[in-house]
């Protein structure tokens, strides 16, 4: 099946359309089934993926608007493959664990459309197609936050939409400009990212374009100081919305950096290492402190997302394979872990209809399973070795250390400040005596809830102990990208900083 990517993209959309016909009572089951099929398909994609090939695979290329250079161009490499798999997985688990009772059918249909856009973003190799899915993903999310959210939902939804929309329009101008240059150089219109990679741009163009793309991606990530939409969106979104938002939508921003900014503007990227690192460090420390000040459990997780995205960002700009692979791995890790944490908050919210930590306390005694899973995810979140959270964070910090020891130490405080707010959440909610009468009768996780967490826990441990199946394809593609960036860089500075690994992945297998 060579066109598996198209199937992956459009199956959920088609299923969403057909979903309108499905009876209300069966909508949930329908959603789970479709998401499961989609997940299995993505697993198949992984299985049939050639892990030794660092380039694009399963490429599909159909000219769409040749006069304008737009084509329907899809493909995956090691970097995007796992983001696709994570997307389908989190959608499946999200739908399966969904606790919404109102308008379930609309929710299922919306989620399926959202899944299409998310998969689309990760497999698109044409800038316009990428942009198309990128923007479209806002719409279902707007609806999810706006229709099922909390009291401020409309404000949050619109803020989310407009903020990201604004940024991405600037990015669009950047894309158009790249296309223009490409046309000037080659005489052909093309929006294909792989074509764009071949462009060697002068420094000032690179810088301006980097800035344009940066705005689009940074708002999505969200980087400080563009992050304030996120706490609102998370605070108001229903659980499923937060899960998808944190797990997948934020990754679109960081993915954009790997897919566009780094390979297209290597020199600008190198020049921007320090500013980006500074912003990232602010994200890491500042938002961690803000998270510590929160009273609402969900807001803590929301701000912690920003903090973790800081780690991802800084790793991306390490300009060596350790850092970038770690950063991509950390995207997956953060996707799984923060998704799970939001689901966990959702569990308690369903029971108590509050997320204020002051309302809880001593939950460990009443809901031991819940406390256990929360504890595992907490540990993964603070980057405990042998959980998924460590691998990425460690690699990121290793990688960036080569660039700047001092900034690495500052970013590394993430393991301290992260522990501070996470442990404080755990202490406030789970430890201590049970003070509130209504908490004494809370039910522990139901089998349904438990079974939606078990796969996540399994992944957290599996990829913490044995990340190789995932890390190696990522690493291969990253190495290829770095080699390419190094070759393309025009300034000596960039050539010096971009580090091409000389030892291949297999050279030092287990002896």
């Amino acid at each position, binding site marked *: 099946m060579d066109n598996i990517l198209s199937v992956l993209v459009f199956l959920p959309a088609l299923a969403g359309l057909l979903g309108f016909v499905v009876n209300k009572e069966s909508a949930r089951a329908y959603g789970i089934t479709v998401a499961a099929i989609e997940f299995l398909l993505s697993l198949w994609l992984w299985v049939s993926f050639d892990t030794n090939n660092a380039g694009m695979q399963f490429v599909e290329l159909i000219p769409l*608007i040749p006069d304008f250079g737009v084509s329907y161009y899809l493909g995956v490499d090691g970097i995007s493959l796992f983001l696709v798999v994570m997307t389908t997985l989190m959608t499946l688990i999200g739908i399966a664990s969904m606790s919404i009772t109102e308008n379930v059918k609309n929710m299922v249909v919306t989620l399926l459309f959202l899944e299409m856009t998310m998969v689309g973003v990760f497999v698109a190799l044409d800038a316009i197609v990428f942009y*198309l899915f990128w*923007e479209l993903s806002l719409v279902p999310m707007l609806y999810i936050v706006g229709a099922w959210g909390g009291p401020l939902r409309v404000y949050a939804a619109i803020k989310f*939409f407009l903020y990201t929309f604004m940024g991405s329009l600037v990015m669009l101008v950047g894309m158009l*400009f790249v296309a223009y240059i490409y046309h000037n150089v080659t005489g052909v219109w093309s929006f294909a990212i792989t074509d764009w990679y071949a462009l060697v741009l002068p420094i000032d163009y690179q810088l301006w374009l980097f800035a344009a793309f940066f705005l689009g991606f940074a708002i999505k990530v969200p980087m400080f100081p563009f992050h304030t939409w996120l706490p609102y969106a998370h605070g108001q979104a229903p659980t499923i919305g937060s899960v998808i938002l944190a797990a997948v939508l934020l990754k679109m921003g960081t993915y954009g950096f790997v897919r566009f900014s780094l390979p297209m503007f290597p020199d600008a990227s190198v020049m921007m290492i320090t500013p980006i690192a500074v912003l990232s460090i602010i994200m890491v420390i500042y938002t961690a402190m803000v998270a510590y000040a929160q009273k609402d459990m969900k807001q803590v997780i929301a701000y912690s997302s920003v903090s973790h995205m800081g780690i991802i960002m800084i790793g991306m700009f390490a300009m060596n394979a350790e850092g970038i692979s770690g950063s991509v791995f950390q995207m997956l890790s953060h996707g799984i872990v923060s998704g799970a944490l939001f689901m966990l908050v959702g569990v308690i919210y369903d029971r108590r209809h509050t997320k204020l930590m002051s309302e809880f306390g001593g939950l460990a005694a009443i809901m031991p399973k819940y406390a256990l899973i929360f504890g595992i995810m907490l540990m993964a979140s603070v980057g405990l070795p042998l959980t998924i959270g460590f691998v990425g964070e460690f690699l990121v910090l290793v990688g960036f250390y080569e660039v700047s020891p001092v900034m690495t130490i500052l970013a590394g405080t993430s393991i301290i400040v992260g522990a501070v707010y996470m442990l404080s959440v755990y202490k406030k909610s789970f430890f201590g005596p049970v003070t509130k009468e209504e908490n004494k009768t809370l039910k522990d996780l139901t089998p349904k809830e438990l079974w939606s967490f078990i796969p996540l826990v399994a992944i957290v441990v599996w990829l913490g102990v044995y990340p190789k199946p995932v890390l190696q394809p990522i690493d291969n593609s990253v190495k290829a990208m770095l080699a390419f960036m190094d070759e393309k860089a025009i300034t000596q500075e960039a050539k010096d900083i971009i580090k091409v690994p000389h030892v291949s992945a297999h050279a030092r297998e287990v002896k």
Partner: protein
Amino acid sequence: MFEPIKVSLESLNLVTLAPMLAAVAGGLLILVIDLINGKLHKSFYVMLTMLILFIDLGATLGLTLNERGFFNVMLEDGVAIVSQLLIIVASMLFTPLALTSKRFHEYSYPEFFALFLFMVAGFQFMVASDNLILVFVGLETASLSLYTLIALHNRSNSYEAAVKYFTMGALAAGFFAMGSAVLYALTGTIELAQAAEVLASRIDNNALVLTVLGSSVLLMVAMAFKLSLFPFHTWAPDVYEGASAPLAGYMAIVPKIAAFAVSIRIFGMYIDLGVEWVREMILLLAVVTMTIANLMALVQEDVKRMLAYSSISHAGFIMAALALDTTEGAAGIFLYYALFMFTNLGAFAMLWISRHKVRRFNARFDHPYEKFAGLIHIMPMGAVIMALFMLSLAGVPPFSVFWGKIYIMQAAVNAGLVWLAIVMGLNSAISAYYYLKLIVYMFLKEPVKDVDTVYYNLSKPLMAVIGLAAVATVGAVFYVEPLISYVYFMISASGY
């Protein structure tokens, strides 16, 4: 003694006139039929109008490219043909909207349809000539018909709208005429092609700067009025509000297409001659218009009025393409309208089906946002389609307007005006707010009253039109390619 004037029919090349003649003859036919039998139902006239427009369309398609005719006043170049096609298609979309399930005053007069056809003919004359006399005549024919059509809606607001539009239109006509006079004084001709030649030799004469300035500014005012550019836009919101919804939607497209065609001819000439300030003026108008109109749209309480401001903003957006004076820019204008047409008419048609005889929600407005609250519960399909139109207008891909937007933004980038593209982008972001506001009302709020009748006016033909608009909006990605190549070919063939 005067020589007898011998004009051979071939040299007149009447084919170039055929489209307009079809429309005019059709209008007359309707009047005659009404004289013979005054009791015919509006559906008869609607269908007749459709047929006449069809003939008109056929005649337009049959035109040979870049042909002149009728004492060389007709000029059927690419711009003319493309804009005529757009005008006719938009008219064909508009006409069936008369077939509402409720009766409306204006459609009971067959004159409505006759006037409508005269108006179409007027616009066609306007675009199909580079002779300022004919442009002026076409402009006035169309405008006078349009004022009447607005007034026919028979509401106190409609009269007010008609008067405002009329008065300001008369002033604009004065400006246009004066501008033509100055240009005439400058060049001794009112044919743009010849004027350009003459001007080219005189443009460096510093003594004439004032005249060039005067002519361009006067003509610009007249066109800016037609295109509803800030600060000449003031009529637009009121007129849209006073006019019936379909007519408002129509006004946001057809007169502007015609005005753009004329503007391309006139201002393209100036820019080609190296009169940079014309470009500056256009850019300024464009940027200010799209921004201010956007900001004003933010604060509207009525959907129709919001859409009025939104179409002003879109006009500003397109105006920017005019400043580029590149083939892409000119093609962008028509491409944008071709894509915008369906969405915009669809959106206004959605308002049309919810039009009530009496205002139920608000003392002043017919279509306040509250009216659409919870539409998803009342009329799910309608809400989804309206949302599609709104997203398209906001420029969310892959819906139709998005393609127009990026084409124009690309054109701006290609012309070296990256800042303009960024301004366009940011404006799109601002505009998203008010479009979203409607979506929020439709999807995220509970209905305010138990409204049995949001889809009060719905009928099969209206559903068909809206359905067509929705399909065209959603499926844009599939026809953008042929559209671009056709428009681009036509525009470049006519030398712009």
